[in-house]
């Protein structure tokens, strides 16, 4: 017998970290305006999300300049400093910038205490151009959140988006890396995404996205185990909370997803 009220109370009463969030996407001038992140954090507190990890990728299929990327990351840094202990950052980088991408990641880690890197759709995860960024995260015990999906609509608006096979390719190259495949609920064919992750223990997956097809969360846990699944919303609070509440999982599995112990060390280290 499913008891929704009990499921929602369970979610609210236990620690929850949202590993995939944004406080707006774009370039925000340093003018003291924190309205977006303030609304995000009040909304999170309202529903029982305790901590959030945000990033600010420059989307649209373009290569932003290093200066634009630094400005985007500085906005995240200002937001993180406004909510110490509750808000954490990832450094968006574009590997096309080579050593400058690594330098930007290094700057954000040292200046803001960011937990890792956010990569987008300029290159697939297994492309060797990503290697310097991956190697930096391995060396400094950080993780990478990769925008991901197996999108089946034509024309393909994101030809180099990473799907689970690309994630697996990178994971095999760097078995010591910690890679998160983003939004199982926002990345197209989730059946495909599940199958590609079966044999790569250092790839994790967040449950964010607007899609809440029945069986998706149970399938994800069957494919890779709850210890490799992370709670996330990517702005879709009702969908992400609801699909976790509705999934036929044990309480222990849900607790693991809500506050994955394998990732707690990043939170404990974050926020300089």
């Amino acid at each position, binding site marked *: 017998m499913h008891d929704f009220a009990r*499921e929602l109370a369970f979610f609210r009463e236990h620690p929850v970290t949202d590993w995939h969030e944004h406080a707006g996407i774009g370039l925000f001038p340093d003018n003291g305006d924190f309205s977006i992140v303030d609304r995000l954090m009040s909304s999170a507190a309202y529903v029982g999300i305790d901590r959030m990890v945000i990033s600010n990728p420059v989307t649209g299929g373009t290569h932003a300049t290093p200066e634009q990327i630094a400005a985007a990351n500085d906005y995240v840094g200002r937001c993180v400093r406004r909510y110490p202990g509750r808000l954490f950052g990832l450094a968006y980088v574009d590997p096309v910038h080579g050593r400058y991408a690594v330098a930007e990641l290094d700057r954000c880690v040292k200046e803001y205490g960011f937990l890792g890197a956010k990569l987008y759709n300029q290159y697939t995860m297994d492309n060797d151009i990503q290697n310097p960024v991956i190697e930096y995260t391995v060396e400094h015990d950080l993780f990478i959140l990769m925008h991901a999906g197996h999108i089946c609509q034509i024309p393909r608006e994101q030809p180099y988006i990473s799907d689970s096979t690309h994630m697996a390719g990178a994971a095999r190259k760097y078995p010591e890396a910690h890679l998160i495949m983003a939004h199982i609920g926002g990345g197209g064919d989730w059946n495909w995404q599940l199958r590609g992750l079966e044999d790569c223990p250092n790839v994790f997956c967040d449950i964010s996205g607007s899609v809440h097809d029945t069986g998706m969360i149970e399938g994800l846990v069957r494919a890779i185990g709850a210890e490799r699944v992370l709670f996330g919303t990517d702005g879709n609070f009702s969908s992400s909370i609801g699909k976790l509440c*509705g999934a036929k999982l044990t309480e222990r599995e849900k607790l693991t997803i809500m506050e994955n112990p394998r990732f707690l060390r990043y939170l404990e280290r974050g926020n300089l």
Partner: protein
Amino acid sequence: MLIDACAYLGHYPFRKTENQTAPELIALMDDYGIEMALVSSLPAVYYRDVMDGNRELFDEIAPCADRLIPVATGNPRYPCALDDLAECVRRGCRAVRLYPKQHGYQLTDPCAVEYLRRAAELHIPVAFPLCLEDLRGRHHLDIMYPLSADEIADAARLAPETDFILHNHNNYSYAVVLSERCPNRVGGFYYDIGRTDCLYVDGLQRLIATAGLDHVLFGTSMPLQYIDVQLVKLHYLPDRANLTDAQMELLTSGNAKRLFRL
């Protein structure tokens, strides 16, 4: 009381799903406190002759007619479509769902316009499940894109007395277009809450402001989607949208009772 304006029975071809039969759906509804559901046949969408699926649906739900309210699946371009629609209404259907993209016609084709007008004459609304599931992950045999708001607006202007229901999409953006392009119709536009959020993103509040609370319906797309997602919204919506118990009653059941004459 919860009345689900958007539910299905039968096998879905593109992924494994549970709760495909009437007894299973009733058990699911009991778990979630859903009193009644407007159900149509999923196989009917993919049969060449949708009426075969409709008749299967009638047989399947006959033992639980007080809980599962039949909704016809229609294909206006098929022979005898209008006769089939009349038969479905005689057999208790309170709405008809159309799938123009799957069935390969334009909503402004003469046969479709005639069908839409006949639905109004029979006093039933016409529903459009814009996506059965998110099309970014579409199966290669599935449609590529949903019906657009402009396509619906064009048809609505040709069938001004027909009530339209939009299911399972970003309904706020559709409501903006339809309210601008089709003001002062006799028929109304109704929207379910399935893919519109009310928490960090406030699309549902905007939908209510644009379409009017009396045009918003509780709908889950069960068993294809987690019901809990819609219950999360119902839990928080009174506070987020400043709705009274009476207003929530309209959204969760009152509007459906009126629209479907339950």
